[in-house]
C-alpha cells in the first residue's frame, strides 16, 4: 500500500467524490488555477474544469452563502476557507442561514465548509485558530476534525455525502507531518462515519479524550508514560465534535475511571468543558478523580516561537497532567 500524507489523503477524498458525483463542486479563494494555498486542490482545475473548481472573490460570506443557495437546489458544494480563521466572516451565514434552514424551512443544506486550522506553525493570531467551540453551540451544524490520514480521507468523503452542513477542520500542522499507508482509490473505499469516535490507543489506567493535532501529542505522552511510569493510557480520538459520541466517552470512563481532556483550542468555553459536563451527567459514579483539562492558555495565539510553544498544549504538559491525575 502506498504511504500518503494527511493532505494527500484529503485531496484523494475530494477527488474521488468529484469523480463520483457531478453535483459536487469546489469553490474558494485560489482553489482553481493556483491549486489552493496549501495545494489541497492542486490539479483539480485541470481535471474538472472551471465550472466545478471555482476561484472566488475574497468574500467569505458570499462563498458560504452561495454554497448554501446552490445546496438548497440539490448541489453538493465544498467551500474552502483559505485559513479557517476567516470563517468568522461567514459566521452569520452558517449560524443564521445554513444551520436553521432544515428546521425553519425543511430545506437540506448539504455543504462542506473546510479549511486549515490550528497552530504549532508560527502562524500568529489570524492563521492558527481552532474555531470549533464557536460552532459547537449551534444546532443544525456538524463538526468533524480528523487526526489521521485515513480519517482525513474518510471524513471528507462522508461529509460531502452527508445531507447536513458539515464544518470540516483540517490541521495544517498535520498536512505533511502525518503519513500513513492507505489503499489506493481503486481499492477499498474509505468512509469514516460521522459521529463515531475512534480508540487511538487502548489502555487501562487513565483516559485521554482528545481530537486533532493533540491526538499525536497525547500518543507521544502515552508512550513516554508507559515506559517511564508504567501507566497504561487509553486515548479516544473524537473525530466528530458535533454530534459527539457520548457512548464512546462513557465507555472509556467506565473502563479507566480517570479522564484528562486535551485540546488545542483555548480553555474557557472550549469543547473540554462540554465533555466534562456530559461525563458528570452520564458517568459521574464511575470517576475516581476530577476531570482535568490540558488546553491552550486563554490568550490570542502569539507569533513568537517561545510564546506559541508555551501557549499551546505540548507533550510535556500532558505528561505532567497525567502524572498528577494518576497519583490522585
Amino acid at each position, binding site marked *: 500500500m502506498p504511504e500518503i500524507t494527511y493532505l494527500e489523503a484529503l485531496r484523494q477524498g475530494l477527488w474521488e467524490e468529484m469523480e463520483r458525483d457531478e453535483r459536487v463542486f469546489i469553490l474558494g479563494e485560489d482553489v482553481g488555477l493556483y491549486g489552493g494555498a496549501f495545494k489541497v486542490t492542486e490539479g483539480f482545475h485541470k481535471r474538472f474544469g472551471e465550472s466545478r473548481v471555482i476561484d472566488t472573490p475574497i468574500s467569505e460570506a458570499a462563498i458560504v452563502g*452561495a454554497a448554501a443557495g446552490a445546496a438548497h*437546489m440539490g*448541489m453538493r*458544494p465544498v467551500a474552502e476557507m483559505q485559513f479557517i480563521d476567516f470563517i468568522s466572516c461567514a459566521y452569520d451565514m452558517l449560524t*443564521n442561514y445554513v444551520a436553521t434552514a432544515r428546521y*425553519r424551512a425543511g430545506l437540506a443544506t448539504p455543504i462542506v465548509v473546510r479549511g486549515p486550522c490550528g497552530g504549532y506553525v508560527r502562524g500568529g493570531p489570524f492563521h492558527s485558530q481552532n474555531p470549533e467551540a464557536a460552532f459547537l453551540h449551534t444546532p443544525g451544524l456538524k463538526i468533524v476534525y480528523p487526526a489521521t490520514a485515513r480519517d482525513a480521507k474518510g471524513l471528507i468523503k462522508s461529509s460531502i455525502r452527508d445531507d447536513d452542513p458539515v464544518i470540516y477542520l483540517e490541521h495544517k500542522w498535520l498536512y505533511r507531518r502525518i503519513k500513513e499507508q492507505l489503499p489506493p482509490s481503486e481499492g477499498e473505499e474509505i468512509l469514516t462515519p460521522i459521529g463515531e469516535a475512534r480508540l487511538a490507543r487502548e489502555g487501562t489506567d487513565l483516559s485521554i479524550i482528545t481530537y486533532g493535532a493533540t491526538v499525536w501529542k497525547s500518543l507521544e505522552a502515552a508512550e513516554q508514560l508507559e515506559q517511564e511510569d508504567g501507566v497504561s493510557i487509553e486515548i479516544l480520538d473524537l473525530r466528530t465534535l458535533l454530534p459527539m459520541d457520548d457512548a464512546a466517552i462513557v465507555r472509556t470512563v467506565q473502563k479507566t475511571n480517570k479522564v484528562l481532556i486535551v485540546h488545542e483550542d483555548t480553555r474557557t468555553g472550549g469543547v473540554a468543558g462540554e465533555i466534562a459536563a456530559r461525563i458528570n451527567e452520564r458517568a459521574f459514579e464511575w470517576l475516581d478523580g476530577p476531570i482535568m483539562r490540558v488546553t491552550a492558555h486563554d490568550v490570542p495565539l502569539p507569533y513568537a516561537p517561545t510564546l506559541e510553544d508555551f501557549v499551546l498544549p505540548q507533550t510535556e504538559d500532558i505528561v505532567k497532567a497525567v502524572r498528577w491525575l494518576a497519583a490522585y
Partner: protein
Amino acid sequence: MATATAQSAKHQAQSELHKRMLREMLLIRRFEEKAAEAYALGKIGGFCHLYIGQEAVAAGTLTALRDDDYVICSYREHGQALVRGISANAVMAELFGKATGCSKGKGGSMHLFDASKRFMGGHGIVGGHLPLAAGLGFAIKYQGGDQVCVCYFGEAAVNIGAFHEALNMTSVWKLPVIFVCENNRYGMGTAFERVAAVTDVVEHACSYDMAAELVNGMDVLEVHHAAARAVQRARKGGHPTLLEVRTYRFMGHSMSDPLHGVYRTKEEVEEQKQRDPISHLAMKLKDEGVLDQAALDALDAEVHAVVEEAAKFADDSPDPDPAELHAHVVAD
C-alpha cells in the same frame, strides 16, 4: 383583419394581466389589514412587518416570472409569498404559529417558505440572503436551466457587506439573478440619506458592471415592465440586474413602530398615500373601461372573503405538536 384580431387578443391578455395585478395587490392589502387586526388581538406574536404601500413591487415583479423561477426575500415578505401562490391560509397560519403554516409554525412572519412554489424563504436578518440568491443563480446555471432568481431586499441592506459580495459575485459569474431593492426610504426609523453616502441605490450597479434600472414603485405597470426586461436579460444571457424600486410603506416598520412623528412627518405619509398603487391602477382600469365600479367592488369582496377564511383557518388550526420540536434539526 388578422392583425386586428391579434391586436385585440393582445389587448385582452394585457387587460387580464392588469386585472390580475390589481387582485394581487388588493389581496395583499386586505391580508395585511387582517394581520394587523390579529396582531392587535394577540393572535400574532413577535415581529410582524406589513407590506401596505409596497404592494406594486411584489405584484409587478412576480407576475413577470414563470412558475419554475426562484424567489428569495427578506423579512417583509407576506406580499411576495401571496403573489407567488402560497395560500393565504398557509401564510396566515404561519403568522399565527400554527402547524398548518407554510413553515409548520417554526418560522413565523419573517421566515415564510414553500419550496414547491420555489419560494426560498423570508429571512429575518438584513441583507444576509443576497449571497444565497447568488448560489441559487449558480445552481441554475450549473444545472443548465433557463430559470431566473429574484431577490428582494430593502435599501438599508445596501450598507451590509453581503450586498456587495453578492453583487460582485453574481456579475463576475454572469448569474441569472435579479436584485430588487425595495427602497422605502427608511431602515426602520433611520432615513437612508442619514446613513448612506450614495443614496441612489441604482448607482451601485456601476461598481459591479451590472444592468440597472430606477423604477417608480407606486406604478405597478412600470414595475412589471422593468422586471420583464430584467427577466429577459437574465433568462437569455445570464445577465443580472439591479432594480431600484422607489416605494413607500404606509405603515410603521413593524407593529410596535409609530406610523409617523418620530422619524417622518404625518404630512409626508399623507402625501405618499395619495400615490397609493392600488387606487392608481383601479382608476386606470376604470378609465379604460376594463372594470367598472361594480366589478371593483366584487373583486374587493372576493379577496375579503379569502382573507377572512384565512384568519378562520389559522384560528382553527392546531398548534405545532411538541413532538415536532426536535424534528428536522438535522436529517432524521
